[in-house]
């Protein structure tokens, strides 16, 4: 965790430095050549900042995977709950068939008795 925080802080410092450089490069009181040099330096800082952000992005893949696994568990639970509800309904549906079958058997039994 401290390492991540340090990296985040470094990233922010780089971005702030970029902002300052760009800001100065637009200052009309500074000679043009120096303004261009400041902008060039700002571009370099930005490249370094992008590299650090990209490294963070690529490293976060593992954290995404971990979170994904947890959400998958909840999805499995939801599937199970949906199936349980279906099963309850199926019992009622099956009951109809069983009563029909018993009624049929009953009528056959009566016929046999008569």
């Amino acid at each position, binding site marked *: 965790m401290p390492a991540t925080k340090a990296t985040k802080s470094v990233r922010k410092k780089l971005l702030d430095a970029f902002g300052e450089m760009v800001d100065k490069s637009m200052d009309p009181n500074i000679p043009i050549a120096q303004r261009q040099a400041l902008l060039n330096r700002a571009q370099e800082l930005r490249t370094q900042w*992008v590299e650090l952000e990209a490294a963070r992005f690529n490293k976060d*893949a593992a954290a995404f995977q971990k979170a994904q696994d947890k959400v998958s568990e*909840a999805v499995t639970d939801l599937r199970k709950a949906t199936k349980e*509800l*279906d099963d309850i309904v199926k019992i009622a549906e099956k009951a109809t068939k*069983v009563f029909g079958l018993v009624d049929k058997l*009953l009528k056959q039994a009566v016929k046999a008795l008569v």
Partner: protein
Amino acid sequence: MLSKADRRAATPFRQALSGLALTLLLAACGTPRDFSVYQETIAEFQKATDQTATVALEYVHGINDVERENELKLLREDPDRLLDARKLATPVLTAEALRARDRTFSVLKQYTQMLADLADSDASERWKAASERTAAAAELLIEDLSNVAPSLASLPITDAISPLRTISNVIAKEIIDAKRARALDAAIEKAAPAIQDISALLREDLEFVIQQRDTLKQQEISQLSIEYAQAQQLGNEPVRLAKLREIDQKIRARKEGLITLQSVLQTLDQFDAAHDSLLRYARSDKGPQDLYDLVAIVRNYAATAEEVFAAFKKAGDASS
């Protein structure tokens, strides 16, 4: 006559029905709620999350292209710039890291879809239809038993019918809804920490996207301001005025771009608020105020997500 096998078949069936009746009656002790409003709210949350994830992923996938385009632009504009072909050939974000985002959002979509599907399940309606058919079949059987063979009325089948008959359709609907609501609550509770993590990670990605694009615009404006000063120094009025127009356009474009990208981040804020409210509702006593709060927050999120999604689509259509 009924065979022994038929009688044996009737006994476990009666036990199953008695067990079902007990389970359902116990489930009926759950907190009542206006389930249809809850269903609609979950469906709204699902749709809004889908839209948020689509927009966010599209921006995240654009990171590599934006960097590559920038490098090509700098090479075109600066004849002295050294060409590092590796920069053009190797994307800054790895394919694996991008796939990890894709997979996570695919699972997140599945999760919200399953929430919506379960909330919208027609189990209670199917139960109603099935139980009506069952009741008709049972009534016919009892009628036949008492009319034509009173001696058969003592068979266990009459006992088996009774638990099912005690469950009215109204009660059954409440029971099924309560069972379903508890499953939804449990899933929301279980997934919550992971979803909060995903949101925090996505926030970092989106902040990167915003700054990545904005820093490029800042560079462009700075370059133009230098070119303006050069034209001014040389007394080249047409170029000076052209640069002034360009600077004005770029400043406006930067402002608009920032508003658009910030709105995606605001949608993520509202996603967090909506998800928190779902979680709070799952943990609450489900009173009318709890439901009202949930609906208000989710609707607010859904409206923003819809707006941002429409703006994103419009921007995509305009650029294609």
